């Protein structure tokens, strides 16, 4: 008899499916008798998904095929675990609502954990991102990835940090095209002063009018 295990999955009991899923994620080739995690994912009990996902991550396996079946609270727990890869974090964004993403980014800012945040930039409130960008710059990183997504106020504050030499890793060449006119001039003036060059290229005549 040629029995294929894949055809039996819908008829297995919840504990048996869980056991099968754990066997898959624990195996070196991420398979059990030709079955992959995505084959069994729809049949794993909702309450077992988090445990299977955590076991998979401990074995350095991808769990993105489980996301669509997981409860939102379990997804959030999974994010907080810190086990998810950059690719998984990208994929996860479609399962989170705006406030979840804002909260996630606030937590990252507060804990100074800046791992895997780039995929969330377009979906985060400008104010939340502004705070994250300033914190990121103050912590010694170049925040160029934020520039297209933050408001003018945050960029003005960043220029202030640069001029006060509190954000030494900011690459000015990447920053200046995103600034408004006033901040561009301020940045160039500060740059020229620092280099000891004359500030002849900045037209001061308009300030007198």
């Amino acid at each position: 008899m040629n029995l294929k295990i894949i055809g039996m999955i819908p008829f297995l009991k919840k504990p048996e499916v869980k056991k099968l899923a754990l066997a898959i994620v624990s195996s070196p080739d991420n398979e059990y008798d030709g079955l992959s995690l995505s084959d069994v994912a729809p049949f794993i009990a909702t309450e077992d998904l988090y445990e299977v996902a955590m076991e998979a991550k401990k074995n350095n396996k991808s769990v993105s095929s489980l996301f669509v079946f997981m409860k939102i609270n379990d997804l959030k727990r999974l994010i907080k675990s810190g086990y998810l890869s950059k690719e998984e974090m990208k994929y996860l964004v479609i399962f989170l609502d705006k406030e979840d993403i804002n909260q996630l980014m606030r937590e990252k800012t507060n804990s100074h954990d800046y791992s895997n945040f780039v995929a969330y930039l377009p979906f985060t409130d400008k104010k939340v991102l502004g705070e994250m960008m300033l914190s990121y710059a103050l912590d010694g990183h170049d925040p160029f990835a934020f520039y297209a997504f933050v408001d003018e106020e945050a960029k003005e504050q960043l220029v202030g940090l640069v001029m006060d030499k509190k954000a030494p890793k900011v690459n000015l060449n990447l920053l200046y095209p995103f600034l408004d006119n006033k901040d561009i001039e301020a940045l160039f003036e500060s740059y020229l002063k620092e280099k000891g060059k004359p500030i002849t290229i900045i037209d001061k005549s308009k300030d007198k009018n």
Partner: protein
Amino acid sequence: MLSSVKVGNRIRTLREEKKLTQEELAGKVFVTRQAISSWEKGQSFPDIDNVVSLCEIFQVSLEDLLCLK
């Protein structure tokens, strides 16, 4: 926020007014001809040092070169 296309067009206009080829301007700014071409097409912005050099070569203000008006 700056427009790379506007800045590129301005650089091209100023270069042509000075009757310089891309190659000649590249020699004065110490960059490659490809860099000048990329700026003029709006594909990239010049670095701050290069912006300063371009202002000096064309004898224009920062406001004029970067179309900040």
